């Protein structure tokens, strides 16, 4: 009985909210560190290498599945708690003065959390899903000038020094060149593998260009400003959610004592301000950069 109470009881549900919430705070730090690379000049190759690592490394895979599970559990548990809490007061007060004794963030965690969830969904559609499933995900290219006046676009291979001229490479679904033109020597298969067409031998691997996807997204002529503003707004919502959530997690786990609680509260508020601001700077920088 005691064991199942850890899932079903009021206090048990709070432990899970706290544990998944704190794990997601760790995730935020990792994600932020990755994103901040976008602010570095000439970060294209580094960022795409990082994106490749994050989508293929087995240890990262385990962490990412833990993150998906945490987000789902945090959301489902949160919704269950919010429904129960609504039911606990069937008749409300005619006059209520909640700001006299509690903060805005603490009273609106469910609404803030739902908004963050909507943001996560759109964010995953815009970036994560493209990286994982989009067959038309662009591959990283670079403009190189091997000799004066011979500037052209090259695909960047994963091995150092490998470059493949763009017009030599046939992309999946691309038509054969018109009659009279020489057939292409190379072909992209399985998303990023580069094959020699005649020998059907793999000659190299390319990078998915998440860097380009990101820059194009926030610099989009028509919608880039709206995407940027939505991102910044979502970070503001996240800031409020963390403002209460961080220290609340420690209280739920029973970690409250006169010495540590003021430090935890301060750290939580610092986290709630710094992390979302750093996240928000990135799309602002991209949108307004040349």
């Amino acid at each position, binding site marked *: 009985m005691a064991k199942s109470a850890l899932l079903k009881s009021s206090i048990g549900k709070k432990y899970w909210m706290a544990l998944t919430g704190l794990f997601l705070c760790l995730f935020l730090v990792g994600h932020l560190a990755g994103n901040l690379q976008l602010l570095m000049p000439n970060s294209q190759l580094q960022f795409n290498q990082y994106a490749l690592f994050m989508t293929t490394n087995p240890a990262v895979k385990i962490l990412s599945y833990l993150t998906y599970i945490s987000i789902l559990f945090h959301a489902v548990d949160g919704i269950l708690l919010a429904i129960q809490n609504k039911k*606990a007061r069937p008749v409300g007060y005619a006059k209520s003065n909640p700001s006299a004794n509690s903060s805005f963030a603490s009273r609106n965690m469910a609404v803030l959390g739902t908004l963050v969830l909507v943001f996560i969904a759109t964010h995953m559609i815009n970036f994560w899903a493209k990286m994982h499933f989009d067959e038309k995900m662009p591959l990283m290219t670079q403009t190189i000038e091997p000799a004066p006046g011979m500037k052209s676009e090259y695909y960047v291979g994963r091995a150092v020094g490998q470059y493949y001229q763009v017009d030599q490479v046939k992309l999946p679904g691309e038509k054969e060149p018109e009659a009279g033109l020489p057939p292409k020597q190379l072909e992209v298969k399985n998303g990023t593998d580069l094959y020699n067409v005649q020998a059907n031998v793999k000659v190299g691997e390319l990078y998915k260009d998440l860097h380009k996807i990101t820059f194009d997204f926030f610099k989009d002529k028509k919608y880039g400003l709206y995407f940027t503003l939505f991102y910044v707004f979502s970070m503001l919502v996240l800031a409020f959610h963390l403002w209460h959530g961080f220290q609340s997690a420690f209280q739920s786990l029973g970690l409250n004592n006169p010495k540590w609680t003021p430090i935890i509260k301060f750290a939580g508020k610092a986290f709630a301000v710094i992390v979302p601001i750093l996240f928000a700077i990135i799309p602002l920088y991209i949108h307004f950069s040349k």
Partner: protein
Amino acid sequence: MSAAKNINITLKIWRQKNAKTKGGIETYKLDNVSTASSFLEMLDQLNEQLVNERKEPVAFDHDCREGICGSCSLYINGRAHGPDTGITTCQLHMRMFNDGDTIFVEPWRSKAFPVIKDLVVDRSAFDRIQQAGGFVSVNTSGRTIDANSIPVPKDDADKAFMAAACIGCGACVATCKNGSAMLFVGAKVSQYALLPQGKVEATERVLNMVRQMDEEGFGNCTNTGACEIECPKGISLENIARMNREYLKASL
């Protein structure tokens, strides 16, 4: 303190015939209320007026009128026990209000505290939580040793005493946006968990009291901290954290 004066007020009071009928807010004008009177004395004055008008007086809970029994409840102008801190309703004075004020008076709102009549709610859910484990089963057959012969660290004794100051008034539930009873249960769990006499039964106590609390239909704590601020006895949120620790220990 300035001398008492008389003020005229408008009261908006929840009236409900019994648990089964639907209630509503009624408006009453009350003149010549002394600012030196307590909130309950003001309600007595209103009831006198209602009786003289051959109307049904307003039912409200009260007993000791010195802030220790926890009977008087009342959600006044959007706050449990009204606009002051560290008090019950009997300790709220009319000097906190101004001439011409409109004052809302409502019962505690919680699924677990159904309204019996007007402003009176049934708080027996708290009794059932206490009966589920809020006690120490000592043998009192006559040869029990004196409690003071067991050494208790001063710090623990103080914390247990502060938790035991809970009068079970239900302000925590009333003020919590989730209608959660965790400050009450936290205090009751803590006052025993901190003392050697209570530690013996700590595991079953916390499991049983929390199970009963959930069964009664109270909401879940989201750590807004409103209960701690509205509690007339200043019960600290540390008690909820202690209950959370005790519950984790007991569940593993």
